[in-house]
């Protein structure tokens, strides 16, 4: 499914997992569980040895996945095996994409059911070639906006993005935080774009997800909290978390069909 189609009914919940943690086979079941429990989009992370945007929880998951034999070939096998009626989005570092070859990577995404890419270490300045490859393969390339992104830069980033715009909730790296910052709400407010806005980094509870939706976000992204539960083999807890978050964002703002995509 395409992201545009998914965002016709918003707000929505986006869940991240690290492919290959604890094993490539397990990832298929976990992704399907996320979709069943209410995740509207599944972000499937490709583990990298040097994940500079990630905090300790996702770093450790990446290390476990690599140790369990995860690689890019297996990643696409896993993605194509997942049976879930939600968009699958690739999340991973640029060197992994670059080594496969941009067009080959985009092609493999298309063939395995992935419809969008998030590459956190690829700012728009460096993204020209990958954007062209994504366009050729009819994929979305999602750009990120950070709390310290100057106002005049936001339209430039939004212009280079498709599918949705990823709002980084706070400075620093991925990982659970205790509260939603005022600056996050300010960011949601000051980003003026026709693209749907989804907020991630530090969102780990139903309350936090509800808060960013109330502040005007179209989607809430949960990552480290999922990865943490998976690392403790707590799939019951994972299902509960997703159900709870989905319910909370639905209460924060009734799900509606968007007037315009």
């Amino acid at each position, binding site marked *: 499914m395409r992201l545009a189609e998914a965002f016709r009914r918003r707000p929505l919940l986006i869940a991240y997992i690290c492919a290959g943690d604890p094993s490539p086979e397990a990832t298929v079941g976990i992704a399907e569980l996320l979709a069943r429990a209410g995740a509207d989009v599944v972000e499937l992370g490709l583990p990298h*040895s*040097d994940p*500079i945007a990630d905090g300790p929880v996702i770093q450790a998951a990446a290390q476990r996945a690599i140790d369990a034999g995860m690689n890019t070939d297996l990643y696409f096998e896993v993605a194509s095996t997942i049976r879930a009626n939600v968009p699958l989005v690739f999340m991973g570092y*640029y060197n992994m994409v670059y*080594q496969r070859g941009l067009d080959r990577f985009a092609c493999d995404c298309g063939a395995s059911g992935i419809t969008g890419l998030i590459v956190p270490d690829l700012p728009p300045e*460096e993204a020209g070639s990958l954007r062209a490859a994504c366009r050729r393969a009819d994929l979305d390339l999602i750009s990120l906006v950070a709390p310290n*992104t100057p106002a005049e*830069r936001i339209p430039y980033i939004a212009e280079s993005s498709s599918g949705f715009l990823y709002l980084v909730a706070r400075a620093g790296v991925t990982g659970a935080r205790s509260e939603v910052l005022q600056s996050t709400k300010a960011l949601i407010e000051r980003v003026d774009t026709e693209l749907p806005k989804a907020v991630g980094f530090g969102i780990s509870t139903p309350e936090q997800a509800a808060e960013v939706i109330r502040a005007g976000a179209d989607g809430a992204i949960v990552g480290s909290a999922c990865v943490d539960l998976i690392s403790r083999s707590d799939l019951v807890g994972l299902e509960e978390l997703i159900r709870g978050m989905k319910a909370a964002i639905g209460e924060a703002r009734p799900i509606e069909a968007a007037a315009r995509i």
Partner: protein
Amino acid sequence: MKITDASMTRFGRFGGRFVPETLMQPLKELAEAYGRLKEDAGFMEELTSLLTDYAGRPTPLYLARALSRELGRKVYLKREDLVHGGAHKLNNVLGQALVAKAMGKTRLIAETGAGQHGVASAMVGANLGLETEVYMGEVDIERQKMNVYRMELLGAKVIPVRSGSKTLKDAINEAMRDWAGSYETTHYLMGTVAGPHPYPLMVRELQSVIGTEAREQILVAEGRLPDSIAACVGGGSNAMGIFSGFLKDDVKLVAVEAGGRGITSGRKIADHGACLNFGEEGVLHGAMTKILQDPYGQILESYSLAAGLDYPGVGPELAHLAEVGRVTPAVADDETALLGLRRLSVLEGIIPALESSHAVGYALRNPDALGEVSIINLSGRGDKDLATVMEHEGRVGR
């Protein structure tokens, strides 16, 4: 110092800024501040004064008579081992710390492998009154206990890095993660010509004092330019520092990389650190450059007896200069470096750092590659390496 357009982020195909959006603004602010300050007479005066009175510059260009006799040609040593702290690292640290101060930052963070850049950062942090925290891999902390103690004595905090391979590359990752959350008060003091723009440019310019001095000195001593210059390359800051003075001249520039225990690689570990020679194009620590990686793009751990050359990447400008043929990549393995260390100690009464010993060893093994007059950049002194050398000797049963 050479003036360069601060908006330029590339060296040919290499360089750039492959970083999370959170770091884009801090990098732009740094590039702008540095670009402005290097044109500021007051700032340059302060830097020059510290380089002179605190670091001990200029360093001599020393004609190594015994080494020259042994090789049958004139070999000069650029004595960066005489810089305060025992290595060229201080040149860069002084410049960046002054930039940080001028930007109103109160805290420095740095990465370190062997500890030399960490020690230089700790020294300057103490000298300029900036809180200093140094990220260091747990494995390196174990290998370099004395440098950890030196940093602590200088008032810096050493933060153990337990992620990934627990060495230099992971210390850089951790420093970048810290900076993404702390840039408002903190300057990330990168120790080499790697990383995202403006670091490769800024660190090269701050180290270019080596090449500027060497060029003047060799012209006085010989009345001509040298035929060649050899420098060891890990990230490449001492090499770019001296090479930058001779890029437009007809002087052969030899980048001697760590051959380690051989040019083979395992699944996760390479047995060397020779990215210009055997690396492939890819992105590491925010720059497109030559790196050691597996076919999927996972970064390999590098290996060298010299911790300062134990890095799976190399500065993007060096990758460019090697590609266009301006810099000649070469390799010296552990044993060649040890030969360099021993011979220079006995011949000249100078114990070179294991890193610099790679350039010395290369010269000993390949004298014909040097020409009639050459300069070796002696980037650091070897005191820090004695334990490593002793242990190595014990292991090979000498």
